C-alpha cells in the first residue's frame, strides 16, 4: 500500500523537498498534494466515500460510529454553541464588517478561514481574527485554545455546516505557507522520530493502544471539538484545532509551538487546503 503513495508527502519525507515547493503556478504543487492524498486514501480504503472523511475515526469502526452517532443526537457541545451565539451577539459590532465573509452573513465567516493575508504575508485563522476584531473594537481578546474562543468558534462552525472547505492559494506567499505547513506535517519531529504523517497517513485506521488513528483528510472540518478527555482534564471539554496540535506534539515528545504562532498557522493552512471540497461539520464530538 505504501508504494501507492507517490505524493509530495513521501517526497518531503525522503528528501525534505518542501521548501522548493513554490510553484510558478501558485497552487499547482498544493493541488498535487491534495489529489495525491485523496488517491492514497482511496487506494487504502476503496469503500470509504470521500465525503465521509469529515468523520475521522468513525469511518473505521462500526461500534464506535454507533456510540458516536448516539452522542451527536444530544451533543454535549450544544450548550456551548448557544453560549457562543450569545457571546457573538453581545459584541456583534466588533465582528460584523471586520471578519471576512461577515458582509454576506454569519454563515459565511467560518468558510472564509484560514486565508493568506498578502499585506502581512501571514496566514490568518478564524481564532486570530476573532481576537483581532475584538482588540480593534477596544475589547479584551479571548484566551486561545478553550473557553470563549472555542464557544464562538463552535457557533460560527455550526452556522456554516454543510458548506464546503475552500482554501485559496493564489500567490507565492500562500504557496510558501502551504509548503511550510506540509514540512511540519511530513517531517519527523521530536524524540520519538515521528511525523504527523506517520500516524495520520501511513498508519491511519490502525490502532495505537486503543486509539484508532484518524486520516488527515477532513481533520479540520469539525473543529472545535468536544472531547471526553478534555472535559475530564480541565475546562468544559471544547477545544480548538491548535489545542489538538499541541496535544499531538506532546505525544511525539516534541516541544509544542506557540498556539496561533506562525508554525501552527501554516500547518493549519496546509491541513485545511488538503481538505478542500469536504463539508464543514463543526463542532463535533470526539472521544
Amino acid at each position: 500500500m505504501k508504494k501507492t503513495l507517490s505524493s509530495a508527502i513521501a517526497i518531503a519525507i525522503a528528501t525534505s523537498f518542501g521548501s522548493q515547493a513554490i510553484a510558478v503556478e501558485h497552487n499547482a504543487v498544493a493541488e498535487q498534494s491534495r489529489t495525491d492524498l485523496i488517491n492514497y486514501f482511496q487506494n487504502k480504503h476503496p469503500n470509504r466515500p470521500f465525503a465521509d472523511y469529515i468523520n475521522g475515526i468513525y469511518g473505521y469502526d462500526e461500534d464506535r460510529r454507533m456510540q458516536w452517532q448516539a452522542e451527536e443526537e444530544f451533543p454535549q457541545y450544544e450548550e456551548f454553541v448557544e453560549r457562543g451565539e450569545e457571546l457573538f451577539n453581545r459584541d456583534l459590532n466588533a465582528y460584523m464588517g471586520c471578519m471576512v465573509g461577515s458582509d454576506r452573513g454569519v454563515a459565511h465567516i467560518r468558510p472564509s478561514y484560514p486565508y493568506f493575508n498578502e499585506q502581512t504575508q501571514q496566514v490568518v485563522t478564524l481564532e486570530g481574527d476573532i481576537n483581532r476584531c475584538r482588540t480593534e473594537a477596544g475589547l479584551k481578546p479571548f484566551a486561545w485554545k478553550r473557553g470563549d474562543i472555542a464557544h464562538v468558534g463552535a457557533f460560527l462552525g455550526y452556522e456554516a455546516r454543510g458548506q464546503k472547505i475552500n482554501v485559496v492559494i493564489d500567490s507565492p506567499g500562500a504557496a510558501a505557507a502551504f509548503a511550510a505547513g506540509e514540512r511540519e506535517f511530513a517531517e519527523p519531529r521530536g524524540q520519538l522520530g515521528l511525523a504527523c504523517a506517520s500516524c495520520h497517513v501511513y498508519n491511519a485506521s490502525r490502532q495505537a493502544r486503543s486509539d484508532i488513528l484518524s486520516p488527515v483528510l477532513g481533520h479540520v472540518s469539525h473543529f472545535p471539538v468536544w472531547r471526553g478527555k478534555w472535559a475530564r482534564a480541565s475546562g468544559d471539554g471544547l477545544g480548538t484545532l491548535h489545542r489538538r496540535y499541541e496535544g499531538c506534539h506532546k505525544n511525539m515528545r516534541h516541544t509544542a509551538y506557540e498556539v496561533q504562532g506562525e508554525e501552527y498557522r501554516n500547518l493549519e493552512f496546509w491541513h485545511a487546503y488538503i481538505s478542500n471540497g469536504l463539508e464543514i461539520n463543526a463542532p463535533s464530538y470526539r472521544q
Partner: protein
Amino acid sequence: MSQSRLKSVLGTLAVSAMLATPMAVTAGEISEEEMQQRIAQGKELAWNRAQGNCLACHMMPEGTSPGNIGPALIAMQLRYPDRQKLFDKLWGVEETEVKYSMMPLFGRHGILSDEEINLIVDYLYTL
C-alpha cells in the same frame, strides 16, 4: 555506540549463562532472583506509557488494549537467537532501521539508556 555494544555483550554473557543453566548460577553471574528482578524491571519499562510504551504499537502477551502498528512481540528468543540483534533493533542502529517505520530509535534518540534497553531485552526473552 561501541560502548553501548560492549555493555550489551556483557549483558549477553550473563543471560546466555542463565539460559544454559537456569537453576544453578555460578559465582560471578547473576542469581535467579536477580534475573527475575531484571525481568520485572524490563516489563515495567516496556509497558510504562512514559518509557518504552511498546504496547502502544505491539501486541505483547498479557498486555491489555495493545495497538497494532507493529508486529506482535512473541517467541522472541526463537526469532532472535542472537541477543545482540534484538538489542540493536531496540537501540536503533542504522542497519536495523526500517524506512518510514514508527518504531522509535530508543537508544540513538536517547529515549532509553543502554541499561534500560538491556532490561527490556531480558523481559522480551521471556515472551
